[in-house]
């Protein structure tokens, strides 16, 4: 058919090697979709087939989650063992004679718990920040592919305005995440942990304030950046459709005899490029989601372990320790929330480009 020829011609002229390289790396970690490429997605779209095997997907995610829970179980057992020792020390405090010995022991056990938690939380922090990096790299690879497609569809002013706006948003968001939000959450976790060895709450409110502040900054940044993008998209869309209508009208009326056919085939080419643009955008979404799924599941498993340890330690150890274990779990969840919010913003960008142009 004719539209397939047009699509193939356009695909041949495009350089998708970087995107395909990224695509090869992404599902190696997470089998969200087995075999996926620009061509196969376009074929699925044209033939009306679903792109994802949803049943398979859910099974994979469930399996991955339980594997991760199992592998972080060791950490939970270590913490719980130290908590049991603390409980023993508290009960034996009378037989030591002086209170100092037992409270010294409790404190040293608290230090062991802090060391364990900071070690594992630092891994969580690192994986979050590297995921953030990978997602923004995906965006910077995706944009130079999608924006020319958008421009060749007639979205001239959209393309030329969206490119710097989205690129600046992605880079700025990545910078704010790496240098402000994620370190703030990590430092608040340190404060929460040091709180577990003291009798009084010295820095608990400060820690909670830092965590809330990090969440607030994330929300604000996402609102501002996606708001700017959405408004720019709406503004330029009307200008572009005006431009396209003028071009089509002039081809139709000012070129004699073949003008009508030319205008019709122009429409066809534009719609075919639209299909390619959707496919490329879809691949970007798949890459970002599969990049996100792995660390999110990992961190969620660690958070569940922290929460369960807190629940188990509550009857045995003293109140401060179980409280701070609980709060560390919440901090880990907060990290995933921030990460998922970042991914959501990137998805908004991609869909904004996908929906732009096309309806001339």
């Amino acid at each position: 058919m004719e539209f397939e020829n047009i699509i193939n011609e356009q695909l041949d002229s495009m350089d998708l090697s970087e995107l395909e390289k990224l695509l090869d790396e992404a599902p190696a970690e997470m089998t969200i979709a087995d075999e996926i490429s620009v061509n196969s997605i376009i074929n699925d779209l044209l033939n009306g087939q679903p792109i994802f095997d949803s049943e398979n997907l859910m099974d994979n995610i469930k399996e991955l989650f339980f594997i991760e829970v199992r592998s972080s179980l060791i950490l939970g057992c270590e913490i719980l063992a130290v908590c049991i020792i603390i409980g023993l020390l508290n009960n034996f405090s009378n037989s030591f004679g002086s209170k100092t010995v037992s409270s010294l022991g409790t404190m040293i056990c608290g230090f062991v718990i802090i060391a364990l938690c900071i070690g594992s939380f630092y891994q969580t922090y690192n994986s979050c920040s590297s995921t953030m990096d990978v997602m923004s790299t995906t965006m910077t690879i995706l944009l130079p592919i999608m924006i020319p497609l958008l421009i060749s569809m007639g979205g001239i002013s959209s393309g030329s305005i969206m490119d710097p706006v989205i690129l600046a948003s992605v880079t700025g968001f990545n910078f704010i995440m790496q240098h402000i939000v994620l370190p703030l959450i990590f430092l608040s976790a340190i404060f929460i942990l040091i709180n577990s060895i003291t009798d009084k709450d010295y820095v608990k409110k400060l820690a909670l304030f830092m965590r809330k502040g990090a969440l607030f900054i994330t929300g604000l940044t996402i609102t501002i950046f996606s708001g700017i993008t959405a408004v720019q998209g709406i503004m330029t869309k009307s200008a572009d459709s005006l431009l396209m209508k003028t071009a089509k009208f002039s081809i139709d009326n000012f070129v004699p005899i073949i003008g009508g056919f030319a205008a019709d085939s122009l429409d066809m080419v534009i719609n075919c490029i639209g299909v390619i643009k959707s496919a490329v955008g879809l691949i970007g979404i798949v890459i970002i989601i599969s990049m996100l799924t792995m660390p999110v599941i990992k961190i969620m498993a660690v958070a569940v372990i922290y929460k369960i340890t807190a629940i188990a330690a509550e009857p045995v150890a003293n109140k401060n320790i179980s409280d701070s274990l609980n709060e560390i779990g919440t901090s880990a969840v907060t990290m995933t929330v921030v990460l998922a919010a970042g991914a959501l913003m990137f998805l908004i960008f991609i869909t904004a480009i996908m929906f732009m142009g096309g309806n001339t």
Partner: protein
Amino acid sequence: MDMIKEWVSNLFILIMMLTFTEILLPENTTGSYVKFIFSLVIMTAVIYPIISITEAY
């Protein structure tokens, strides 16, 4: 951010040291006075960056 990191690590070490020392204090009036002074020290360490940030303005 480097300044905040330094502040957090200072605060961490300070609280650790003071908690350690608190255990060794005797259980009498002097001990409770010293504990009060320790909490004053921690308070100063907590609010220190607010003063140093707003100093320039």
